[in-house]
């Protein structure tokens, strides 16, 4: 199965591009401490708000310019990627596992299990993210892990909802009913028919949500509730730079592009994986 998936995936050029983007951005974030040209936290005040340039100023090269404290944007974006990407992966990773499991169980078991899970989901969904995030951050105090918890606290219900509704549709689908009639047990139906069939959907959800969490972090930073400074994340850098959009647009532009490319990459990758993972779609061109 592995090689077939890989072959299908390889044929999808957009997915390869997406994979490439994720790989490049992920690696550059991972290697930031070694490849960043300057200290991301400390800047030289006299070098503040310098534009992108390929010539060195006072012995320092600021390829993508500096911010209002004279910190190198490139270095900050490289380091910011570490925070943003790991936040996105952590939050979504935790949420997808919890969401898929609870979504499947909820759909399959029905009855009171479904009721309880769905009521919890309802209560959480009914909260605006922000109110939850502020209250939880207030409780735990600021910090990276606390932000992960504050976001994942509600995030898992997204996957849960969608997995549940897909599984509900599958549950009444002809092939599942046929399998059940043929004597398949609950475990087999859960894993074989439901889990495998919701995985493509879960991947689509997960990819979109990774991007979404990265964006959510940016929004929280915009509202002044994000990661602790001076530690940069992409969202923090954009939010910090928004006041300089006219005068020093490069501050927000580079992290904005980084977010855009990363989310784009993750999404393309997810689409490609989805097509490749779905056996019945392999090699088939629909509507042509």
């Amino acid at each position, binding site marked *: 199965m592995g090689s077939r998936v890989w072959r299908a995936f390889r044929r999808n050029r*957009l997915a390869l591009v997406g994979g490439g983007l994720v790989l490049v951005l992920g690696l550059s974030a991972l290697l930031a401490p070694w490849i960043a040209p300057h200290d991301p936290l400390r800047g030289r005040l006299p070098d503040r708000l310098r534009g992108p340039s390929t010539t060195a100023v006072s012995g320092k090269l600021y390829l993508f310019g500096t911010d209002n404290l004279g910190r190198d944007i490139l270095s900050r974006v490289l380091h910011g990627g570490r925070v943003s990407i790991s936040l996105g992966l952590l939050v979504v990773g935790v949420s997808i596992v919890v969401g898929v499991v609870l979504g499947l169980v909820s759909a399959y078991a029905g009855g009171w299990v479904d009721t309880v899970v769905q009521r919890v989901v*309802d209560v959480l969904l009914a909260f605006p993210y922000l109110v939850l995030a*502020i209250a939880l951050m207030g409780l735990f105090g600021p910090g990276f892990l606390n932000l992960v918890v504050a976001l994942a606290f509600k995030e898992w219900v997204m996957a849960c909802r969608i997995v549940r509704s*897909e599984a*509900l549709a599958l549950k009444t689908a*002809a092939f599942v009913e046929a399998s059940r009639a043929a004597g398949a047990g609950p475990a087999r139906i859960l894993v074989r028919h439901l889990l495998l069939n919701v995985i493509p959907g879960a991947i689509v959800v997960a990819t979109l949500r990774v991007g979404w969490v990265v964006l959510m972090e940016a929004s929280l930073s915009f509202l002044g509730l994000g990661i602790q400074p001076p530690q940069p994340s992409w969202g923090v850098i954009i939010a910090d730079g928004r006041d300089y959009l006219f005068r020093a647009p490069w501050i927000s532009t580079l992290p904005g592009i980084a977010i855009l490319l990363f989310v784009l990459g993750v999404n393309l990758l997810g689409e490609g994986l989805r097509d490749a993972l779905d056996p019945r779609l392999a090699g088939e061109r629909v*509507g042509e």
Partner: protein
Amino acid sequence: MVAYVARRFLQALPVLFGVTFVVFLLLYVTPGDPVELYMGQAGTVSPEEIARIRQEFGLDRPFLEQYGRFLWGVVRGDLGRSIIHRRPVAELIAERIPATMELSLFAALIALLVAIPVGVIAAVRRYSLLDSVGTLLSLVGVSMPGFWLGLILIILFSVTLRVLPVAGRMTYGTGLDPRTGFLLLDAVLQGNGRAALDVLRHLAMPALAMSAGMMAMTMRITRSSLLETIRQDYVRTARAKGVPEPRVILRHALRNALLPVVTAVALNLGALLGGNMVVETVFAWPGLGQRVVDAVKTRDFPLVQGCVLVYALTYVVLNLVADLSYAFLNPRISHGKEG
């Protein structure tokens, strides 16, 4: 049908109860005293004055008593009085709802009008240039932070081109009398074309900034859902029987493919209504989002509780709408099996 709706609302009561209790608890344990915050970081304020205000708003009572008073108020239709505004919470919320709904509905409309046709085309002409461009553009849309997109729109359309107003909902002097609070509706009802145009010009940028995410999501779900449906047996059968392709897609496939789309749209609309704090802030849009952000920051407990209650109700209603349309579109799911 009516009985079903009524039952769903009854089932929603524990959810609303749960939501208000959790909010109350969270606010109670979250540090930060509303009266201290209200007094600000300036001047001299005596402890007696702070104590008096706390007493006037019942903040000196034990937790359960405060919650009990709140519930009893809700039952009587009284959401209490805001500490900061010193006006009834119900008024403060009601005056903000039209703005938020107008913006959200407009954003959703833009999103759907673009996303569903593009999604269908992308699925039917899979891997074509149109598919790739549509996918890429929608992904770019969803990959931009809303405030960033909003600021770029402002720089482009207001500052550089000077064709759209920067912020707000209307210009003073069009003679518009905001009776319902839905300004577009007001303008149309009053036959004021100039005002309608003015309102639309104000709506354009924030609605666009808000619709980007929903547009991308809807388009992708339409596409993937339609792809899945297209290869199902009954579609193959229809196709094998020689039914023309457009008819296969529109009559047979799309109807079923819209199931997940409907769920996603309804849930997304909830997210639009509850998640537009950022766009509202950028465009100075006087909606509920801005109000709740301010209320949380100032720890205006009664106002936060009222807002969250409204969000919860919105969610319950939208969810019901999603489930009803789900059942309506898919005859194989009967009401009896739902929740």
